[in-house]
């Protein structure tokens, strides 16, 4: 932006965001799987998130333009799904399962241990940017309850004593 540009209200996504060319290619490939390009919306958000860690406002407009739909539609989808992050997250996202099977088998102790060890609560990121802690609806690992997921890895059953060893793998 040029220095002498008058101050204006910045609309969501009005600043330029260039999709990475290979990400753009991936999204276009996804679009081909469906009758309408909009169906690639969730995958497009996930593709952006894989590169950036989260989905900035400006990416919403870029995706909308590529899919040929309004930014409001993309924003509506981005805010609906819990695995799309609309704020920066840490290098690793810890999803803690609090569903019934985990609740019955020690979720509270596991959560308390995580909170104590990381010094953060749900929705927060450690000061060093290493971990973000989030709750998750059932991980489908109920025979391994209490369970948690770090990035792409599912763990269970996890006891508070297991935590230091598990977290160590995620620098």
């Amino acid at each position, binding site marked *: 932006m040029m220095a002498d540009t008058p101050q204006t209200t910045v609309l969501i996504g009005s600043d330029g965001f260039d999709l990475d060319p290979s990400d753009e290619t991936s999204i276009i490939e996804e679009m081909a799987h469906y009758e309408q390009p*909009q169906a690639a919306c969730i995958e497009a958000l996930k593709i952006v998130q894989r590169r950036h860690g989260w989905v900035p406002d400006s990416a919403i407009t870029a995706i909308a333009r590529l899919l040929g739909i309004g930014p409001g539609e993309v924003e509506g989808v981005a805010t609906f799904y819990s*695995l799309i992050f609309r704020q920066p997250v840490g290098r690793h996202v810890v999803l803690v399962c609090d569903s019934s099977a985990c609740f019955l088998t020690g979720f509270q102790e596991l959560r308390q241990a995580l909170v104590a060890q990381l010094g953060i609560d749900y929705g927060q990121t450690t000061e060093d940017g290493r971990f973000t802690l989030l709750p998750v*609806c059932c991980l489908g690992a*109920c025979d391994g309850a209490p369970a948690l*997921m770090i990035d792409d890895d599912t763990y269970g059953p996890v006891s508070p004593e297991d935590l230091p*060893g*598990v977290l160590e793998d995620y620098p």
Partner: protein
Amino acid sequence: MSQFIASQRDSVRYRSRLMQTEAERHPETHPLTWRLRDDGEVVWLEEYLSKDGYRSVRKALADSDPQAIIATMKDANVGGRGGGGFSAGLKWSLTLQGDDMPRGYLICNADEMEPGTFKDRLLMEHQPHLLIEGMILAALANNSCFGYIFLRGEYVTAARVLNRALEEARAGGWLGADINGSGFDFDIALHTGAGRYICGEETALINSLEGRRANPRTKPPFPGQSGAWGKPSVVNNVETLCNAPGVILHGADWYQGLSGDRSENGGSKLYGISGLVEKPGLWELPMGTTGGEILDRAGGMRNGRQLKAWLPGGASTGFLLPEHLDMPLDFDTVGKEGSRLGTGLLTIVPQEQSIVALVRNLEEFFARESCGWCTPCRDGLPWTAKVLRALELGQGEDGDIELLEKLAADCGPAQTFCAHAPGAAMPLKTALKHFRHEFEAGVSARPVKAAEGQAD
């Protein structure tokens, strides 16, 4: 030392697994799992073919009669294994078909997010071709032009396995144009979700597949008439589709016979158990197996605890009591006891567990996962959770239990767009029925002022 720590980490890494060995599983009695390997490795195409893989597709393509496939599935009465129990054959027969109709879509519902449920993961992570074969049969029956596997985003391993299996199937001529020289074209794409329980509802799933918020749609029109992009669409659960190859290959009578005299509902079922038992896990057993047998297989209650209550199949089913352990777990029998078979995966609650706290946990889940489309669900579930939190802390007020009953009724069947709120009401209603004294104990002894009396 570091080696020791590494092995410690491996021991807590989760792997889905079956609790029965290869020696215990047979093609005649375990159609869903007999091909699985004890070492937990994936059964890829070559091995799958060597174990009768794609034989039912070969047979169906040779017969080339969609109505015969539907009739066999109907006669077998394969109940939907996503929790609803609706006859898959009947569902297939309701799809609009004919030369003047556009070819529609086949959607596999692999959005397994019901708390307490972990069975479809096993099938997808270890035996992807059984699902693909089932999908081809469903596509043949429904004249579907294309299939989607709608997989929840958290199942990363399943996504990797399915993608490789889809490539294998394409390379082997089992997917794509002119399958196995039959003239039938059908392919499948994997579509992964981004976290939301409501995506498991079939019309919400279709909205999500189309790249929208996962709000349910009004029925009618049913998906079989107008589904994805307005085309006739069939939505079937993973386990349901995995039943199709056996049924088509061996026939409806064989399938019915799998449950012996245990149940009017035929077939086998992936039953599982979680909660405070010695060995939580998953077994393929005849439909109509009792909760007691499954609890025994799991080694009983953990550390000698006493059983207080159990959910027969996920968070949206009603609480059952120890006296129900002898009941055959099938769609009809469990329904008559005021609960539902659901997904057939038991959640075990020990005596010392506060039911109010557990129901609070369940209702918080349902409140968080409401899509917000209709008022009883959007406003009623958070209100329910709030009242339960107060009762849990012993800070409830007179009238709270009646309020919970009213909220449960307002969220009951036919009050909302979809089954999310009625599902949420079920554990609450049954907990109030069986454990009312625990809720009453949460009401403080505060005297009710006359001025606060309700008008009705």
